[in-house]
């Protein structure tokens, strides 16, 4: 009986948690339309151009999927962190460190066959990202440094560290001779390339991203560790009374979050760029994926499965941004602005999700005589 009511509640909660953000994003698009109008472009033409540019042909669709992939990896990680009550702003840095680790492995063992080298490089990216995320976790737990601040700092540190390596040990040896000195590595050994559907840009990492999202969903909702991470995020005090070590699961949450961002970086390097490079800026290599991944995760209701279509949507925005420039002469920076608006509107709309949930749980608790332990499980997340 109690279980039945709680599943019903989850079902309804999910519907709200889906509809309200969608409505909020619609409003953000509306504000975007006003901005386009002010910029002298026809909003409908502009959005249509973006749609066509992102989904119009098989090739652009493939581009969209490829652009969505890093967002998906980061976003899936963000789901773990935020469900665990940790605000991870460090996606950028974690991507970078993951990419460095993947590249280092691929360049060190160029003669290994692909079936060894690819998994090894991906694993290195995963571990690199885990290390960078875990660092922020340890700083939080052992040194009481707020993770929002430490992850921001670690982003800058990672970018500079990458610059340091690319001006030094990792620099393309041929360029050292030519003394052109572009800060980039040599092309990675072809054995490390992810399988690609020639002639499109579509690579196997896209599929890996979807698999990872499903696995993370199972991890968060179907395993004890995942349950504990969510319990810690929902109510740390209650979790502690339940005997869960809050600090340990918080570190685990941000460590895993970083790991998936790092894996995303590795996939990007092995699947798309085939080398590491920097223009010295925060967004140069990652294309802001560390932040856009947060946007995708939020849009997906902080749910790994929901993050799949959300990442696709924002990937489409990124690809569509190029045709925005071409066909209606609106700079692609418009898309960053739109991303920001979507975040603001979606996060602001959560107040209505919470209200609806509150209403419902009041009704539910009036119906059930005694509150059942499974109430904790079904408690909607913020």
């Amino acid at each position, binding site marked *: 009986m109690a279980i039945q009511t709680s599943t019903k509640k989850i079902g309804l909660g999910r519907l709200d948690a889906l509809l309200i953000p969608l409505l909020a994003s619609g409003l953000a698009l509306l504000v975007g339309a006003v901005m386009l109008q002010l*910029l002298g472009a026809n909003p409908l033409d502009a959005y249509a151009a973006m749609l066509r540019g992102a989904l119009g042909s098989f090739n652009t669709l493939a581009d969209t999927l490829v652009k969505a992939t890093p967002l998906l990896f980061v976003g899936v990680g963000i789901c773990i962190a935020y469900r665990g009550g940790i*605000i991870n*702003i460090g996606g950028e840095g974690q991507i970078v460190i993951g990419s460095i680790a993947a590249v280092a492995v691929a360049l060190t063992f160029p003669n290994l066959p692909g079936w060894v080298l690819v998994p090894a490089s991906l694993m290195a990216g995963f571990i690199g990202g885990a290390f960078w995320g875990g660092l922020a976790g340890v*700083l939080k737990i052992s*040194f*009481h*440094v*707020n993770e*929002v*601040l*430490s992850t*921001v*700092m*670690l*982003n*800058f*540190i990672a970018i*500079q*560290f990458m*610059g*340091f390596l690319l*001006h*030094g040990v990792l620099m393309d040896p041929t360029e050292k001779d030519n003394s052109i000195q572009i800060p980039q590595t040599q092309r990675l050994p072809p054995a490390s390339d992810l399988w690609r559907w020639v002639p499109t840009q579509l690579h196997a990492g896209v599929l890996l991203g979807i698999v990872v999202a499903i696995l993370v969903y199972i991890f968060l909702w179907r395993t004890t560790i995942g349950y504990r991470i969510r319990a810690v995020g929902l109510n740390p005090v209650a979790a502690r009374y339940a005997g869960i070590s809050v600090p340990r699961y918080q570190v685990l949450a941000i460590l895993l979050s970083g790991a998936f961002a790092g894996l995303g970086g590795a996939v990007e390097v092995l699947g798309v760029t085939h080398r590491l490079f920097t223009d010295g*800026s*925060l*967004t140069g290599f990652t294309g802001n994926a560390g*932040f856009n991944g*947060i*946007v995708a995760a*939020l849009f997906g209701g902080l749910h790994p499965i929901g993050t799949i279509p959300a990442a696709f949507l924002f990937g489409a925005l990124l690809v569509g941004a190029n045709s925005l420039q071409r066909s209606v002469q*609106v*700079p692609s*920076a*418009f*898309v*960053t*602005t*739109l*991303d*920001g*608006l*979507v*975040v*603001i509107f979606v*996060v*602001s709309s*959560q*107040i209505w999700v919470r209200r609806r949930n509150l209403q419902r749980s009041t009704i539910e608790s009036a119906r059930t005589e005694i509150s059942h332990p499974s109430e904790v499980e079904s408690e909607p997340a*913020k």
Partner: protein
Amino acid sequence: MITQLFTATVLVGIVSSGVRLATSYLYAAIGETFGQISGVLNLGVEGIMLVAAFAAYYAVLQTNDLWLGLLIAIIVGAAMGLMMAFISVTLKAEQGISGIGLYLFGLGLSDLLFRVTIGTTKTLNGFSNIDIPGLTSLPIVGPILFHQNLLVYGAFALVPIAWLILNKTPWGLMIRAVGQNPEAADSLGINVARVRYITVTVGGVLSGIAGASLSIALLNVFQQNLTSGQGFIAVALVYFGAWNPWRVMVGCLLFSMVNALQIWVQILGIPISSDLAVMMPYVLTIVALIFAARLKVTQPAALTKPFERGE
């Protein structure tokens, strides 16, 4: 080579640029201090700085009126501060995330407007250095402290003013009460929402000035992502400064001095990797945050917690 650093001219140069570089951090961090003491974390400072920096730059480029530029930056800052207040106070949104939204919005908008209106980077004549009779001619101290532009003086004047307001006036008491125990403040008849609206808007105004201090006083240019993370660092410096304007100033100076040192190391051609040198201030900030946490200063109890009036 290292000994080059320790000549009097170079040392004065480093400290002088350190003081100058602290300006934007000071405005932004002092502004953020007001918001945080009242319980609101505005992580969108960076976004506000960017839009205001562009707005001021554009106004000055069009009219050649520096004061108008500053005024525009203040208006933009106030508007965006108000927006953040509405999002975090009225709509009670998760502050860490809405701040990221405001950042992305500002990052995109400033770049978008720059490309649409100006497109290429042009240098303008910003606020020039003002000498103070009698003080500028002092040895060492003169060139360091009294040969700066108006916004630098303003930033340092802001510190005691902020301290006085926060610690010696009824307003300050109200702000702190709202950040420590909003329920109690509410029961004493303080309008929690209004106090937070005011502090976050004041923070926005100061972030706006911070942006302008870059685009029309220090660098006198605008480009994409001009602030390159300064707004985020300012937020970190508030934690480091334990919500005390004087200590926030110490943090700003520490950070900017290391930055100035790093710049001078490169000017002098000392063979230290510039990538590592640029990294140093960020590493230092983390180390500083570790020490700040050691001092057991507790943060405003209601920081990041929206106030829900119990009916």
